[in-house]
């Protein structure tokens, strides 16, 4: 008997590709660590998108070749990277001036929980080791548009898009769009509710409803 391979929902790479659809020509963009980093692989051909690294760089290039590795050239995830002809370097205060000052068009971040009011929790789990918020609080406070890319439910199956965050917040009422492996939610402004705008292949509205405790429009 032939086994049917279930092709339901988006892979990590497909979630990144979906986030990349929100890029626009000329955008300055900050990508978080994990799935958000993969967004860089999906910039449409012919579109100019400049990536910012909060440790002090505009114009992140690809990972270097083995003989081009430079310890003085890393991204915010501390990975070695390369520069581009249009790259500029600056200090951390300048870097966050552009972030906090609203000069970055888009940030794509990972999330542990997002509330229906657009709160984000992604920096600590009480009782476990706390690594720190890094630049996440500054990014959600200052960047024009914030997209969270995360699995729809946690490993134990509990929803991550919920009425109120249970974990300590990274920012209050800061999220514009949520991309999960099952669906996309968006809201036009920070006083509107989220709306389900897209389903991943093979995913039904019922399934999303069943795995989401947050209230959202359909």
């Amino acid at each position, binding site marked *: 008997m032939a086994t049917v391979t279930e092709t339901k929902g988006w892979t990590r790479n497909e979630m990144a590709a979906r986030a990349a659809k929100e890029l626009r020509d000329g955008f300055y963009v900050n990508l978080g660590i994990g799935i958000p980093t993969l967004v860089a692989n999906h910039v449409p051909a012919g579109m100019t998108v400049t990536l910012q690294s909060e440790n002090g760089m505009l114009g992140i290039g690809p*990972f270097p070749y*083995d003989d081009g590795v430079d310890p003085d050239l890393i991204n915010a995830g501390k990975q*070695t990277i390369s520069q581009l002809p249009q790259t500029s370097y600056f200090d951390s205060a300048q870097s966050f001036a552009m972030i*906090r000052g609203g000069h970055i068009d888009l940030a794509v971040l990972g999330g542990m929980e997002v509330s229906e009011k657009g709160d984000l929790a992604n920096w600590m789990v009480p009782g476990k*080791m706390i690594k720190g*918020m890094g630049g996440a609080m500054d990014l959600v406070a200052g960047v024009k548009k914030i997209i969270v890319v995360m699995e729809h439910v946690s490993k134990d199956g509990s929803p991550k898009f919920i009425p109120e965050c249970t974990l300590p917040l990274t920012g209050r009422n800061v999220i514009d769009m949520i991309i999960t492996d099952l669906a996309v939610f968006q809201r036009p402004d920070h006083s509107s509710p989220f709306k389900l705008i897209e389903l991943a292949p093979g995913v039904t509205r019922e399934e999303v409803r069943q795995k989401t405790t947050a209230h959202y429009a359909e």
Partner: protein
Amino acid sequence: MQKIYPNAEAALEGLLFDGMTIAAGGFGLCGIPERLIDAIQASGVKDLTIASNNAGIDNEGLGKLLRTRQVKKMISSYVGENKEFERQFLAKELEVEFCPQGTLAERMRAGGAGIPGFYTKTGVGTQVAEGKEVKQFDGEDYILERGIRADLSIVKGWKADESGNLLFRKTARNFNLPAATCGKTCIAEVEEIVPVGSLDPDCIHLPSIYVNRLILGAPYDKKIEFRTVREREAA
């Protein structure tokens, strides 16, 4: 006025005391003042409060001072990848003030610029805002953050001229620039010291006024935390 000292130990002479506050440059292990950290470890000075974006990793960077229990408190935005840090933190042997990365950079910049506090939107409505003044500007909430004034700044540059004008290299600039400005005394270690007149005055990253003492720290064995490469495309 001679700013150049023969080594880190000599440059630190008379500046260290127990319970002092130190602002340190670096991001991860990129652009950290390695020679000065080694000399501070060797001095045995203790109960340090250190403002630095990260706390090094096990036995690298500021991780060395954690291992020897010379640090009382860290003011940092991210402290992952450090087992000894984790152990001391969970055992409550080490105090940690988590500070958002941009707020930390601005606290150093402000401290160095004579600004004792500033309002920022970063952290509003989170744990970071607890106990801090909230003020509305144009209908939005902001919290009051304090500038940092350190007893000593330790930074790592790329090139300096003999007067202390500094250049940094690529992403090794990071916190080194704001950290340099916020200390009562700043010691910079660099990879190369060149005669005055060798650097283009239009291209100085950190003017000499911020650098009180200077050492040549080379040769450096720069460590990489996550070496990531791509395959060369077939010709």
